């Protein structure tokens, strides 16, 4: 369903992605690893359509739709979701308001009926509870004064409500304590299904014990240097990245 072919992209004038190829099928979980600065977040951002990146060659499609031709909000409405590596705050806009607006936009774009306030609240509260976000959470501004871990849990909450087709989770495990990691992983596992796919960006094989990947890729200098199965992640953890170089 996600097909990336020979993707080249610049951040500013700097070439960051240098020919990424990746195919993700429904029901799959892919882990994306690689050294700092290798382009993992850039790849997620380019798929999601963040301004500031120029695609210089290649293509990205989701279910046959050319994502690169769409503005970011339409990519989201098509089912692309990105959990941010560094979630930001939107002061003054409550979490509930934000979630409702997001859900309404998706439903409108997909021709689904709008949820009533009551239906929405029920759904949102249940999801928040599952992620251990207290009852006060809904009234607070989006990520306003949230701890690092709460911000990450909030990203997963948004994913659970929006039920994307493709979830790009950029280091959602970073900065989580061991219990939070369990909570977040349980949320992701509950979401994973035959109709969607997940790309997990992570530095830690530990996460992959909770969320078991079908494929593990290592990105080096803007290219996938090597791919493998779950055991590959353990190999990387043992050996580091030094022995992997970008293919010519």
């Amino acid at each position, binding site marked *: 369903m996600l097909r990336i072919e020979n993707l080249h992209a610049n951040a500013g004038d700097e070439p960051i992605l240098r020919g990424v190829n990746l195919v993700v099928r429904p029901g799959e979980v892919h882990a994306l690893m690689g050294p700092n600065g290798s382009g993992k977040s850039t790849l997620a951002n380019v798929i999601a359509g963040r301004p500031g990146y120029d695609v210089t060659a290649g293509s990205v499609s989701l279910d046959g739709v050319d994502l690169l031709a769409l503005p970011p*909000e339409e990519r989201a409405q098509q089912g692309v979701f990105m959990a941010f590596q560094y979630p930001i705050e939107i002061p*003054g806009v409550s979490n509930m308001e934000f979630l409702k607006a997001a859900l309404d936009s998706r439903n409108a774009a997909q021709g689904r009926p709008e949820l009533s306030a009551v239906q929405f609240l029920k759904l949102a509260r249940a999801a928040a509870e599952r992620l251990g976000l207290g009852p006060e959470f809904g009234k607070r501004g989006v990520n306003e004064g949230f701890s690092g871990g709460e911000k990450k849990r909030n990203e997963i909450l948004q994913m659970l409500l929006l039920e994307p087709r493709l979830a790009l989770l950029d280091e959602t495990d970073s900065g989580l304590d061991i219990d939070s990691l369990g909570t977040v992983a349980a949320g992701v596992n509950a979401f994973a299904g035959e109709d969607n796919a997940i790309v997990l960006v992570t530095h830690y094989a530990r996460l992959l014990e909770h969320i078991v990947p079908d494929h593990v890729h290592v990105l080096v200098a803007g290219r996938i240097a090597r791919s493998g199965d779950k055991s590959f992640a353990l190999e990387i953890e043992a050996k580091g990245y030094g022995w992997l170089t970008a293919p010519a």
Partner: protein
Amino acid sequence: MSGPNAAVGERLAQDYAAGFVTDIESETLPPGLNEATVRFISGKKSEPAWLLAWRLQALARWRKMTAPQWAHVTFPPIDFDAISYYSAPKQGPKSLDEVDPELLRTYEKLGIPLHERAALAGVETPQVAVDAVFDSVSVVTTFKEKLREAGVIFCPIAEAVRECPELVQKYLGSVVPQSDNFYAALNSATFSDGSFVYVPKHTRCPMELSTYFRINAANTGQFERTLIIADEGSYVSYLEGCTAPMRDENQLHAAVVELVALDDAEIKYSTVQNWYPGDEQGRGGIYNFVTKRGACLGARSKISWTQVETGSAITWKYPSVVLRGDGSVGEFHSVALTNNRQQADTGTKMLHIGRDTKSTIVSKGISAGRSQNAYRGRVLMNPGASGARNYTQCDSLLIGDECGAHTFPHIESRTPEAIVEHEASTSKVSDEHLFLCAQRGIDAEKAVSMIVNGFCKEVFRELPMEFAVEAGKLLEVSLEGAVG
């Protein structure tokens, strides 16, 4: 535009729905200001001698004054002899049935009901009495009879001069003296109409009162005067709305509003100001130079100003409260939004004179496009104001990189027994915010309106229900095109 905020503020366009002109026969005084102009206006209203003398005195004072320069706004000098000081629809109405249908259509188009439609059976629609001021005159006031039954007087000020001259003579200029400032003096000499309200002792005004100002004629200034008196233990909530057609030249609106609250009385004054702001290049638009002040004369009286300012090329306006009565309360809640080339210099003054007086100031400034938005406040604690308290909160929101927000809070405490608190913040709608929203499927216009509405929540809460919804929509329209 380039840089990290290229997506913000790229496309600038305005959609001003109230910008049409009504084609109606008017009697308009040729431009120019001199004694004859003042005599003409006074004569048109068959005013008593004392009022004519009062106006002429104001004119003499105005001639010796110069336009204030301290505000954070720039515009070419105004030629006061190029303005017409009086324009009125020819057909003067006596009652609702006689109002020119063209006028009724104008107000209907603006969403202002000038009919006294009875509440629908079973549905509770709050009734609002409206005084509609078209250019220089009030064209109709609704629900007058129903208000009379409660003893409330709500009529054009020209009519009040005839019907209750003692009240007008006693309070006119008592809160805003003629020589208060340049524009107040100009208004005192030339005011043509406006609303008058008197709420008798221990009376709760049975409905919201509202005045709707419309400038229609070209080259015409609007100089209206509003006087609201709340007698002991009474309560009134008053709303003010304004619009004008789109014209290439600037038009002057120099109003004076005076509020008087006696013992235990409360006046709630809300404004949604949507004068034509001019186009993207800054051509045209209203100069809104207004003096608004309330006097809490009585003990435990309360005056609260709530304003949502979205229009005008230039806004120069400081609704203030003089807290004279012991234990009196003053409030100011403001949202001022500027876009394109608009300039706003607005704020409030809270003058604490009585003991245990309290004031609250909440100011929310939103700047977009290449606009400039300034908050100017003055809090004064007089020596006798022991136990007085002020809390000021002043927040600015910037949309894009080319606009400006400025705050000029002046605090002067002449008593050690008063407490003054001030908080300020500046935040910015960045491309990062917009991308976060977009990534969740929310487009830029919706995202900005959500952020702006969140920012203004505290102030909107102070508005009467129907107005709060209107205000939210108005902000949305005013911001149209602020993001690309």
